[in-house]
């Protein structure tokens, strides 16, 4: 029988944690013959191959070895080899909860040709007192609680390939992972962007849970920020419309970020000496739990690393100035759909579902009520998004428009604007054709 779902696990010299993950996949609520596992050993030089081979597991395991080419290449390789219709990308440090596979399958049964994101959290025992570890955990917690909201508007920045499943056909239609991201971070965002462009629906499945055995350290966080800086430049180069939603936009205007970059040029020795110099106060404030102080220090360390990454990817300061000057800012006033509540209130859901617009303007007669702005690299607006905004933010404006409406008299013709009076003066010649919209995107 052909398995329904294939799990692809890239790994690199972490045999201990990998074995734990593989063992956890053996105790699933679904029968072992409906899934299989493909482990891609990306340039492993430890005992990974031998240990995987020696394991006795109820499901089929395929082991692929390749020379070190990075996680993106490993995932592509694994995805190319599997034969089942669904792929679940799982990191080697994700210990699966028993309902992981079942939950992914259920979610795919609900949403056709969609992308399902699973949930993961750190094991609670790790380092409960460390404010750094806690802050990282909190970040993930916030991330997932946002995803679980029914009115969340998915963007490419939500995509994380640690625990993510999608149809193989969709993965290949989107063009797989971009292997140019070797040594940079952000290949998952970039894939997510292409999936969103294809119009694939995203779902978050909180039941598809796993435990993330990962101990964050300051050094790793710094490395990651550096890799993110490099990766974001690559994303912005491939998809210039994403520039305004990446942290890169902060480099457009002069601010603390640009000051840091300027120091990097003017006093490179200082920037090289800073991280080791800051390591001590960072450790002191962390162990004394001076939360504010520590947060500012840590934020500064990460920012430096991020902009160092940006700079190293762009090559030079001149190039960076040019990049920040030339990156396009997409027009924010592009109205795709205009709803008049005095007319369309009852048919609102149907109109929004048909339109699937990027930006929606809501008005009541002549009064503007609200505006859902286009967010580059995000899913198109669902009726739920607009309903939520109406219920939470625009209720007052709607009510006041409703109440004012009968009070507003039609305008007195004698008070007609000057524009009307001088209309006669204007030459009829030179008409450039009358368009229905007076404003244009600049």
């Amino acid at each position, binding site marked *: 029988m052909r398995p329904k779902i294939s799990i692809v696990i890239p790994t690199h010299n972490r045999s201990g944690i990998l074995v734990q993950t593989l063992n956890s996949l053996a105790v699933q609520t679904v029968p072992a013959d409906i899934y299989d596992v493909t482990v891609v050993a990306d340039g492993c030089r430890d005992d990974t191959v031998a240990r995987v081979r020696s394991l006795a597991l109820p499901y089929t395991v395929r082991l692929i070895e390749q020379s070190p080419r990075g996680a993106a290449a490993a995932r592509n390789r694994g995805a190319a080899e599997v034969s089942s219709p669904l792929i679940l990308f799982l990191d080697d440090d994700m210990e699966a909860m028993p309902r992981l596979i079942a939950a992914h399958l259920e979610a795919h049964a609900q949403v056709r040709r969609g992308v399902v994101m699973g949930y993961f959290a750190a094991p609670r025992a790790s380092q409960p007192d460390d404010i750094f570890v806690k802050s990282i955990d909190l970040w993930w917690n916030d991330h997932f609680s946002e995803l679980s909201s029914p009115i969340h508007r998915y963007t490419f920045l939500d995509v994380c390939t640690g625990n993510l499943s999608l149809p193989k056909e969709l993965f290949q239609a989107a063009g797989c992972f971009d292997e140019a991201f070797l040594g940079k971070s952000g290949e998952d965002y970039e894939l997510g962007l292409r999936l969103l462009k294809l119009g694939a629906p995203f779902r978050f499945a909180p039941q598809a849970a796993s435990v993330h055995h990962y101990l964050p350290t300051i050094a790793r966080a710094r490395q990651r920020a550096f890799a993110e800086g490099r990766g974001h430049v690559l994303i912005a180069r491939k998809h210039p419309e994403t520039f305004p939603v990446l942290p890169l936009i902060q480099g457009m205007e002069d601010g603390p970020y640009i000051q840091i970059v300027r120091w990097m040029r003017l006093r490179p020795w200082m920037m090289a000496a800073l991280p080791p110099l800051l390591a001590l106060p960072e450790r002191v404030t962390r162990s004394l739990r001076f939360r504010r102080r520590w947060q500012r220090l840590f934020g500064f360390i990460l920012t430096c690393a991020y902009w160092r990454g940006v700079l190293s990817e762009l090559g030079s300061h001149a190039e960076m100035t*040019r990049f920040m000057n030339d990156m396009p800012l997409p027009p924010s006033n592009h109205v795709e759909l205009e709803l008049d509540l005095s007319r369309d209130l009852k048919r609102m859901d149907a109109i929004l579902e048909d339109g699937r617009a990027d930006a929606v303007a809501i008005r009541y007669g002549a009064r503007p009520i609200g505006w859902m702005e286009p967010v580059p690299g995000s899913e198109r607006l669902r009726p739920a998004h607009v309903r939520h905004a109406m219920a939470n933010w625009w209720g007052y404006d709607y009510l006041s428009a409703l109440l004012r409406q009968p009070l507003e008299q039609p305008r007195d013709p004698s008070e007609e604007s000057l524009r009307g009076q001088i209309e006669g003066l204007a030459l009829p010649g030179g008409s450039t054709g009358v368009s229905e919209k007076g404003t244009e995107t600049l």
Partner: protein
Amino acid sequence: MRTFVTEYDLSRSPATIWGLSGYTHVNILVRNHGRPLDILRVAKNAASPALTELDLEREIDSRLGMSLPLRFGYDRLLPPITMEWPAISVIVCTRDRPYALRRCLGALSRLDYDSYEVVVIDNASRTAETLEVVRGTTFRYVCEERQGLDWARNRGVREARYDIVAFVDDDAKVDAGWLRGMARGFADPDAMAVTGLVLPAELMTRAQHIIEGYGNGMSKGFKPKRFAASDMSETDRIEVHRIGVGTNMAYRRIIFDKIGVFDTALDVGTPSGGAGDLDMFHRVLLAGGVIRYEPEALVWHQHRRNMEGLRRQLYLNGCGFGVFLIKRWSEADGRRGTIVRYAIGRWGRWLVGRLVLKRYRHGHNLPWRLMWAELRGALHAPWAYLATYRHDRRTREKFGIDGTGNDR
């Protein structure tokens, strides 16, 4: 402070402008049948998402109302619309700016004009991205290896097929009626060159607001003007920056046969850092040509977003104008005394005077660093002058062209 830039045509039915959340101001270019009338700067609540038709009409009535009849009356004096539209060659000079160029070419492909061609001059780009961008369009691509904006412009003049040659920079976006405005300027048979209105395409950052508030940015007003040497004093002929900017200018080709092409020692990409356009305006006037300023030939220019870029631009402005003055002095095409008096008495006094004003009266809103940058540029001009002509000689030796200044 973020300003939204948009336009509104009185001849069209008004519509609500959406998407304004986060903007504190809106810059509205008010037009009538496509002709720019004025810029309206409207302050708004940053939280409100839209400017309605009513708001818009109220603003226009109260702010421009009195002057509108005058402007409409003025419109009638313009040449009739049923004129012959000459064919125009558009030259875009660019270097390693693929994203800006893509935007520029996009706007050029939407021009509302019948017969025109676009030639992209790639001025010694280091990557092949420029070529990639042009490949996606129907425009012509020419590579110019000698580095310097004026080398590229001269190459453009040589490659152009038509009798009118218009230049636009890669960081600008032309308005759909741009070439019609140019053609209207050239309807005057004496006009040898036409310049046009340059407005900011984007006002998102502090640097962009500063440059726009600094001597009106690049805009030279909303009224057509005519410049001829016979009507101008000698000082006026030095102050050619009042005529226009190189981002938006066009020439009749015959003028190049008469007075030669652009001076390759000048403008961006050489040590002089600018003034190629000023030099050309001056020479056209000197040869008895008329230059017209046509606000209808409208170009949206994207100013530098960060202060670093702005400072560099002001430095180059100072340097370029200084080199221009020295060139005028050395060629003695006016009384030298006038030039020296202008350089020290007017320009120098202005550069230093505003520093004093800023110190004692808090009278100037340009930041110190920018003022200094322009002054430093001006002081550096004599060295830049020597360096740029040395550099030009070397370039000519390297590429095997004699140094007569004209390679046609």
